[in-house]
């Protein structure tokens, strides 16, 4: 299992945060997703085989940009 921290650009309301959570949760291998509008941050726990690219792609499909990965 791995923990990923992402900074997300473009969130402006609570439904944005909830959209990202819902979308990322649908990726296979994702264990937990928690998106904070206040810190513009997503904390994701995922199985090791989940690729960061897939997460990034999913988030951008919903309409937001990942600006930084920690």
């Amino acid at each position, binding site marked *: 299992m791995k923990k990923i921290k992402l900074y997300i650009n473009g969130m402006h309301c609570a*439904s*944005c945060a909830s959209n990202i959570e*819902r979308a990322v949760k649908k990726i296979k291998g994702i264990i937990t997703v928690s998106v904070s*509008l206040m810190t513009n941050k997503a904390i994701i726990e995922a199985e090791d085989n989940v690729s960061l690219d897939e997460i990034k792609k999913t988030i951008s499909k919903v309409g937001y940009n990942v600006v930084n990965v920690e």
Partner: protein
Amino acid sequence: MHHKESFEEKEIRSWKNKLIGAWLFTIPIALLMLLDRLLKINIFSEEVMVIIILILGFPVIFIFGFQTIKSGLRGFTSFYFNMDSLIALGTIIAYLTGIASFFISLQDYSGISSMIMAFFITGKFIEIKARGRASKEIKKLLELGAKKARILRNKEEIEIPIEDVQINDILIVKPGEKIPTDGIVIKGDSSVNESMVTGESIPVDKKINSNVIGATINQEGILYIKATKIGKDTFLAHIIELIEAAQSTKIPIQALADKITSIFVPTILIISVLTFAGWSIFSQDISRAFGISIAVLVIACPCALGLATPTTLMVSSGIGAKRGILIRKGEAIQTMKDIRTIVFDKTGTITQGNPEVTEIYSKNEKYLLEIVGSIEKLSEHPIAKAIVKKANLKSYKEVKNFKIIGGKGLEADISRNKIAIGNEALMNEKNIPLGNFKLVIDEFEEKAYTVLIVAENKKIIGIIGVADTIKEDSKYTINILNRQGFRTVMITGDNEKTARAIANQVGIKEVIAKVLPEEKSNKVRELQRRGMVCFVGDGINDAPALKQANVGIAMGTGTDIAIESGDIVLARGSLRGVVAAIALSKATFKKIKQNLFWAFAYNVIMIPLAIAGFIHPILAEIAMALSSITVITNANLLRRKKI
């Protein structure tokens, strides 16, 4: 961290530009409409008027509102709708009515469309600024770290960027300067203001071997410090990490609001379509149906619902951080209100955790210390350390057959004499009679000493009383908690009498004594049968009990914080923080409830009113903007609360 800060500033600036631009075009529209529709002064013909408004309105919606429109319309292709979807749909439909009015008989809402967008942008701008205020303490914390360090290299003082500091570098900190990173003092004498990270306002004295925390301010002397922790491992970095992580934890009360938020926008879209259909069919007035369904679209506000908890949590974390109270799990805020019992670990929580030999009863104290000191030297126990310190031996006797008897004491042989050091239970086990020493033991225990009985060849040769100083504000804190109606309990490995004596000194009512460290969490579980329990202990030894309790409060030691245990972490080892943490949790939870109530009430009342056609689209938009601003402002008001 740096780019994030500028990112937010950039966002505020961009909304400000949009705001100015939008109103620049919207004000002429508003004036024209005022003259034309209300005062009936017709400068232009009806058709020219619509064209002018459409031209002026175009940049408002499609240039200044571009980001909103784009993000909103994306919802219709990805089916992840957001707040913007409502505004985008509302303004575009309103704008299109202007164009449509040339072809069919329809009221023109295009002027209103610009005003909705302008008010929306205004609301967003205020909201973002208020949100920034909500996190101002946290941002301060992020910027707290030193940027530069003065370092000694090849006997020369040079200034280097903080990123270049390595562990074991010798750093020089002059009076008034920030300590660059965590370290240990190797030369110099001073005091340090640590209030920014621990909340302790009185400067702390530092001398050789004192630990210092990065980002705290050196007061009067020069300190030479050896860097022990850098970058992500520092105390400050841990605090920041902890607070940031807390922002993503969920509070149960928010769950319903979150669920609603996630289906809110599509629901409103459906409702507005139904509203449109209903009004067009029953009133036969399509113009009116448009106006009303636009109002429904723009009045609905999932933002207030979604922001109620995170904004309050943010403000609360900021207030807490300033006082050295770090809320690690948002859930604790909600649980705290149901806590009735507070269990304190004794050592290190109520007491300093540095036991000292206070009294010795023996005919030959020198000999006693010689043998006890030699044996205890082999043990890691804090009490053993206290004895070794007291004995202060230059040379140690040869110890054989050293054996620890868990929870009772230890035994060993010194020059063929069998020595046993421990409590009454050990003496009983070894069949060593206490005799008249029982009186001394009782006396020591009543003084709250931990008693060590020393026997040589089954005969007692001395009694050692070890006391752990009670922390200054333990009594003060327990008093307050008792008065607030909490059931206060102390848990300890000490025997009943010693534990009682300490409990009496600080005012704790109940004592659970003779508890082995690994049994603490079981005791907490037992107490939980009679209600929610908060456990206060140090984060290192008490981790299981902290986890078992409904709310675990971990006490920091001042230079280290146990991040992984405890729902709330007190950066400073003072019990006063417990009272403040409880007050802060309760105030925060109340604020969250208030905010959620308003957010729910707003939507529950305003949406039906809009459906019923009582609210003009512009008023609807203003109300919407106000509702989220109100929630954030109310969260910011938490600062007024005295904690």
